């Protein structure tokens, strides 16, 4: 079943992508392909380049070299953005507007048909449990509520590809579990999810994983495949084993 992730149905295809910010190399020659209809986890400590890779895929950044394709189009590409739902690390919504006003605004940006928008907003806020807070301003929301609002906003226009940058950070265990249940449902509907995390116990919930460290790709594969490759039962141990392999063979290990 997991062998299905070949290049032909890859929804995201990164090819030798590098990106620096000043003298800091955030991402170095990263190539990977993300199959559609799966939950793809980007795992790595903070500063490993997860957010940079995510922003490149979302079209918020251009690579210095290499290309990143989403749905066959080289990013950044404005037409493709209509098919992407992007949840940034910060809530990134307007705190002085109500949840409904925020969603109305983004619904219009993504051209959700006017006739459907109201029903769609009510549907999506029910799903994330914020229906009764639709008309409250976001500045009255708790951190977890803001994150749910942000998720609702990313899902509003029913995107094929969801790019979620550390969506569960700071959530309590109950809420985190419900987020992951929701992610699984979306993948079952055929949507693709890219979820970044630095929490290794979330890795097992993904179909495919990419381990990142210091801007380099350590390995990709399903959680079981990575376990088999390293001989470690625990994914955290697997990550550390792969990271050690990189540091002991610094230059030759790249491909």
């Amino acid at each position: 079943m997991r062998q299905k992730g070949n290049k032909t149905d890859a929804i995201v295809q990164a090819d030798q992508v590098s990106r620096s910010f000043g003298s800091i190399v955030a991402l170095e020659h990263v190539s990977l392909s993300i199959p559609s209809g799966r939950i793809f986890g980007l795992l790595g400590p903070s500063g490993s380049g997860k957010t940079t890779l995510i922003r490149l895929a979302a079209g918020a950044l251009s690579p210095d070299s290499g290309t990143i394709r989403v749905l066959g189009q080289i990013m950044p590409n404005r037409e493709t953005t209509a098919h992407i739902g992007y949840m940034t690390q910060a809530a990134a919504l307007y705190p002085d507007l109500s949840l409904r006003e925020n969603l109305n605004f983004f619904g219009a940006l993504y051209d959700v048909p006017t006739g459907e928008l109201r029903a769609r907003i009510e549907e999506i806020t029910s799903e994330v449990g914020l229906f009764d807070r639709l008309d409250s301003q976001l500045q009255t929301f708790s951190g977890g509520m803001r994150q749910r609002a942000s998720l609702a906003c990313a899902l509003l226009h029913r995107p094929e590809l969801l790019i979620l940058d550390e969506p569960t950070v700071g959530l309590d265990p109950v809420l985190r579990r419900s987020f992951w249940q929701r992610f699984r449902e979306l993948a079952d509907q055929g949507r693709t999810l890219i979820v970044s995390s630095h929490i290794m116990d979330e890795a097992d919930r993904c179909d495919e994983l990419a381990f990142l460290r210091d801007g380099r790709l350590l390995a990709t594969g399903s959680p079981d495949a990575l376990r088999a490759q390293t001989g470690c039962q625990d994914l955290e141990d697997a990550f550390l084993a792969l990271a050690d392999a990189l540091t002991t063979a610094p230059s030759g290990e790249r491909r």
Partner: protein
Amino acid sequence: MSRRRVLALATRIVRQFRRDRRTLILMLIAPILVISLLAYIYRGGTHHVSLAIVNGDASPVAAQLVAGLSDSQALTVKTMSAADATRAIKQNDIDAVLTLPDNLSLTGSTPQTLTVTLEGSQPNTSSAVLNALNQALPTTVVRALNPAGVPLKLNPVFLHGGPQFDQLDYFAPTFIGFFAFFFVFLLTSVSFLRERIQGSIERLMVSPLSRAEIVLGYMLGFAVFAALQSVVLVLYCVYAIHIHYTGHILLVFFFTLLLTIGSVNMGIFLSTFARTELQVVQFIPIVITPQGLLSGIIWPLSSLPGPLRILADLMPLTYANEALRGVMIRGDQLGALWLQTGVLVGFAALMVILAASTLHREIA
């Protein structure tokens, strides 16, 4: 270009600022407060003026009047021939000419009228002349022995301007432009900075929203408030403090709007160079204050020393002020203000380009 997206952005901005009551009230109250203060200062002020008296009659009463007026603290009095006085007032050597009629007598019962010719182009001087004369005349009339209490009236004749025209009429048109320029700049740069700080700009950048739509949406949203501010300020100036006003009201809004387009985009552009709201405030002494001082709002351009004059000629507000004065004081049509219109359109275009290029950097 999607009209729906542009309108969504404009509506969002209107919603956010409608909720920010304090800013909204400040935007309306501050200009009114400032202009009311100026009204109080300028319409109650005294000023030293030079007056020529043409006294063809040399009657005792006239001599007494000349002597009495010469005693006035507020007036410098010279007696001249009618021809000299006419030349002097045209050369701006004197501010006003008081012509005493032949056979001036205060013994009859008919009221006497004294004609004052005012240069008129500097309204505060005109009002100072009239104030000084109105204060000095009653005492001199008493000294000229006026037992019958014959009324003495002043008949002001203006070479330029008009009797109701004063310094405030000269200021007020520029205030409408200045406050629109200032507030729209401040609000745009702060609200754009907030987009950056709260990260929503990233959401906009990865949405189907184009740069042109962002610029247009922002412009539209803030134009609503600039228009509201101009309407309130124009109505207040015309109906509450009775500012001299002859031009077409739509032209006032046209020039205000043109200036606002430049201002919104200048705000978007400069907010790139600010990391905090405090840093936005620091732009005020750099981009706003010099224009407020040099663009001819208070001191006429002709009174500026050479280098500052060149600086003033480079400022968009200078042209907005000329245009708004032209419309409100002289009743100019658009055709007479082609230079000002052209410069303001150019300024707006330049700022749109700069704003769009910073938005481009936002993506790359």
